[in-house]
């Protein structure tokens, strides 16, 4: 980056996308949605060894303050409507991480009458994390993958497109 003297104070020329994406990827607050044993690994990932705080990730108990829906565990058909409701309450931009085999595809419960065969049937998923349950290191990797994905987003363009669609 080159710094220019614009008279009063300093200005930094940069891309709007970069300016929006950098704080977003470094303050990725995730919504706790732990329904099964993956939730234990999720707690462990928040603990001192992998320590999500150093990425600026803090868990939120409310969807209205969350950027990332972290579905950890099996979701039943009864619960699926709650997942959809939480997702709809989250403000844009929002991301979804399907953690563990059950959230990815139903996992062990392929022949079950009650478990949804993958939460991508209910909400759009950005990153699938395999494992039963995945280790904290794997979850860490998946969250860094989401950060990398945020870096490539073009939110300024997308908001412009959205406003054009709304205007029509």
């Amino acid at each position, binding site marked *: 980056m080159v710094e220019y003297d614009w008279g009063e104070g300093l200005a930094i020329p940069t891309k709007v996308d970069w300016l929006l994406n950098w704080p977003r990827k470094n303050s990725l607050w995730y919504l706790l949605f732990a329904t099964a044993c993956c939730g234990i690994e999720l707690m462990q990932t928040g603990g001192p060894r992998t320590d999500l705080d150093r990425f600026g990730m803090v868990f939120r108990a409310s969807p209205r303050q969350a950027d990332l829906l972290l579905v950890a565990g099996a979701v039943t058909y*009864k619960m699926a409507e709650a997942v959809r409701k939480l997702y709809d309450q989250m403000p844009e931009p929002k991301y979804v991480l399907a953690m563990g085999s059950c959230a990815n595809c*139903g996992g062990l419960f*392929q*022949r079950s009458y*009650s478990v949804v*065969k993958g939460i991508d*049937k209910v909400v759009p998923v950005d990153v699938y994390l395999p494992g039963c349950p995945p280790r904290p290191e794997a979850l860490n990797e998946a969250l860094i993958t989401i950060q990398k994905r945020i870096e490539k987003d073009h939110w300024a363009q997308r908001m412009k497109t959205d406003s054009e669609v709304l205007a029509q």
Partner: protein
Amino acid sequence: MTPDEIFAALQQQLPDVGCELQKSQVGDAWILVPPKDILRVLTSLRDELGMNYLACLSGVDYESSFGVVYQLRSLAKKTEITVKSLLSKENPVIESVSGLYAVADWFEREAFDLLGIQFENHGDLRRIMMPDDWIGHPLRKDYQPPDEYHGIPFERPDSHALLDELFPRREVVENPPEPTA
């Protein structure tokens, strides 16, 4: 007290009830009770023989009939006894014991939810685990899951062949076996 002693004491209390003591190859013997007399038998077991704790109430699909299994314990005497009742496949109805044991309230709702066993005089016989608008009773052996629930498809369309190979579907039994111990 052994199951034999409990059965003998029960027959003394209720000589007109057609109870049977069924021996099992593994585990303890259990008592088979006609469905119409279940309330009298459990009342007698609780009040006269001290079986004050209903550890578990389960519904079973034996294919030729439905069953309800009551596992009773006496905390004071440190004994336990299993009581079973067989219901017809067409009309599985039995008297509720939630008035005797308060814990039977949710057990019976579970048996109703998953197997469709009707408990008379229960008072609040609703589904307890499945959604209220679910169709059918999922733990019945002849249960066929729906294609979708509220727009969520039931199976992943790309995984049928692999699934059938890995986990073969249960074959329908032509002549279901009689329930055994």
